[in-house]
């Protein structure tokens, strides 16, 4: 392509000409999923504006109006579109607030995983030798247990050491820490594999000959070339982190019931499912599935587009 002017294309122009945008325009599923995902994120973070009641404000909760069904079932109250839970909280409000907490933990945990995993992966791949052996052996050991198992065990131990009152007070931070620490090997392995492929290329040699320090080469030269696998696994990891949060909360090792997240809502509703109030548990459940499904489908699309050499096995 020959251009008469030497002005480099702007970011927007580069995006518009990219294969990614081309493929996105043709993929109805990806568009739908992105739309659903963005809507959910906006709705969740705008929950104080959208929700008719504030579940943290005890004065707005009326225990007399507990276990009311959603609007399409007889006996529904028009004040509560999706019904109420066993404590009389408006289900629509707590689902919005709960989604916000779940997303917060999901993103937070993935950022932590990525920071740890990318740093360790870069070090293992670029420095090699003993650092590589130790870090990868550590990752191997941790991955040979399932990450969920690690999260459950760590969560249980932290809760047992600190007492449940302290734990539930700092539950969001704790969950981010636990899920972040449990899943970093995924990033480390992926990054290490692509660093190994990159590090013998000429541009790295050139940088080394110029006398740049290892740290600079690692983060400024090698890292940008390992971004596409990082993006691809990030989507899957966000979905996994949200599921892990829900699983931990469901086991009573995560968010307390007074502090709604999707997992703790499902848990609190499960106790009432036998009495016929299925909506308390299944509506947050459905929201969780739609959220995770849209992220997973976006991840699938992204993997097809970027087609990185993911670390296999």
């Amino acid at each position: 392509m020959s251009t008469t002017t030497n002005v480099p294309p702007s970011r927007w122009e580069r995006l518009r000409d990219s294969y990614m945008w081309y493929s996105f325009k043709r993929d109805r599923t990806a568009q739908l999923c992105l739309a659903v995902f963005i809507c959910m994120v906006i709705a969740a973070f705008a929950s104080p504006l959208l929700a008719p009641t504030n579940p943290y404000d005890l004065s707005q909760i009326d225990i007399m109006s507990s276990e009311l069904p959603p609007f399409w079932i007889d006996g529904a109250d028009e004040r509560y579109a999706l019904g109420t839970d066993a404590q009389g909280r408006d289900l629509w409000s707590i689902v919005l607030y709960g989604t916000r907490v779940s997303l917060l933990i999901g993103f937070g945990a993935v950022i932590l995983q990525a920071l740890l995993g990318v740093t360790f992966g870069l070090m293992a791949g670029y420095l090699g030798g003993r650092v590589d052996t130790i870090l990868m052996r550590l990752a191997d050991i941790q991955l040979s247990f399932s990450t969920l198992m690690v999260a459950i065990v760590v969560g249980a131990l932290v809760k047992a050491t600190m007492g449940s009152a302290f734990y539930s007070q700092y539950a969001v931070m704790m969950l981010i820490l636990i899920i972040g620490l449990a899943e970093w090997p995924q990033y480390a392995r992926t990054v290490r594999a692509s660093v190994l492929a990159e590090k013998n290329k000429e541009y790295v040699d050139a940088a080394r000959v110029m006398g740049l320090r290892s740290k600079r080469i690692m983060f400024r030269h090698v890292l940008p070339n390992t971004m596409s696998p990082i993006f691809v696994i990030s989507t899957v990891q966000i979905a996994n982190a949200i599921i892990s949060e829900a699983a931990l909360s469901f086991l009573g090792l995560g968010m307390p019931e007074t502090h709604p997240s999707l997992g703790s809502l499902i848990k609190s509703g499960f106790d009432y499912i036998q009495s016929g109030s299925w909506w308390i548990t299944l509506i947050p459940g459905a929201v969780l599935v739609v959220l995770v499904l849209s992220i997973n489908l976006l991840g699938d699309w992204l993997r097809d587009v970027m087609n990185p050499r993911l670390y296999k096995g």
Partner: protein
Amino acid sequence: MIAFLIKRLMHAILVMFVISVLAFAIQDNLGDPVQQMVGQSVPESEREEIRERFGLNDPFLVQYVRFAKNAVQGDFGYSYFYREPALEVIARHLPATLELVFAATLIIVLFSVPIGVYSAIKPRSPISRLFMGISIIGISIPVFLTAIVLIQIFAIGVTVTLFPESTGWGAWLNDFFSTEGNMPSFGRGYDLVNVVGNWDTNLATWNGLQHLVLPAVSLASIMLPLFIRLIRAEMMEVLQSEYVKYARAKGISMRRVYFVHALKNTMLPVITVGGVQIGTMVAYTILTETVFQWPGMGLMFLDAINRADIPLIVTYLMIVGVIFVVTNTIVDLIYGMVNPTVKLTGKPA
């Protein structure tokens, strides 16, 4: 081969060592055993004496060696809650979990192979697309939610009144989508048959099998989509290979090419990934057993956490560690044996 074996064995021992140090550190730091033994009203001097007698004042390393020595001999201490050796408590709960995992594995194998192979042979058929769609939805549903939905549909029952009752087809559709909800969803049932020792089986009676169905299906639901996708991907890759084309060119029947030539090589990676996944199912048993109150190891572990029953927690961690290490080592060995291209002594790829 011997070198590979020894290498794997060393790795397994290293992992178990790390786990045991962690487990011991937990035991050492959580709670005060003297407090557990004597309660509140014993003076400090006597506590100190007990501490000295049980060697609780010894250095960490000395205590760890003692702990490891006992653990190797199967002595993990007494459970605070059950007041019997922790290993015996685990042994009593182990059969329930193993039966659950066995039933789930059976479901996975029976369904994933035919579905995976079919959707690899006919990737564009509507049925394959349907299966792939269901499988990505399956991956996105957490195991406890599957369990809750199954309970709602099959144990509590659903009455659908969505379609107009007055028309014949409306009533029929309502009937079709409604379920009675008479499946048991709580515990193992009353009709267990003792096989040997403390192994009571669910597999021998109708009531026992009924109790097993919903938990096993929930547990299988998390792995089934992964296996379907894995088998499909591997099979599609194998179908592209030269030897399959050659077999086809020779005029061998397609059925024989698919199920004798191609399937054999498809199963190789499936065995390895599968073996490891069966190990990770232990984590999901905690969730499944909680939902269905299935009296296995997972439920016991969660109860132990809520009761701060530290010896039981530590023993569970060690046993689960052994299960993981053993399955991973066996899987590696099987892979090394069935796939001659793996360099057994060399570095892992």
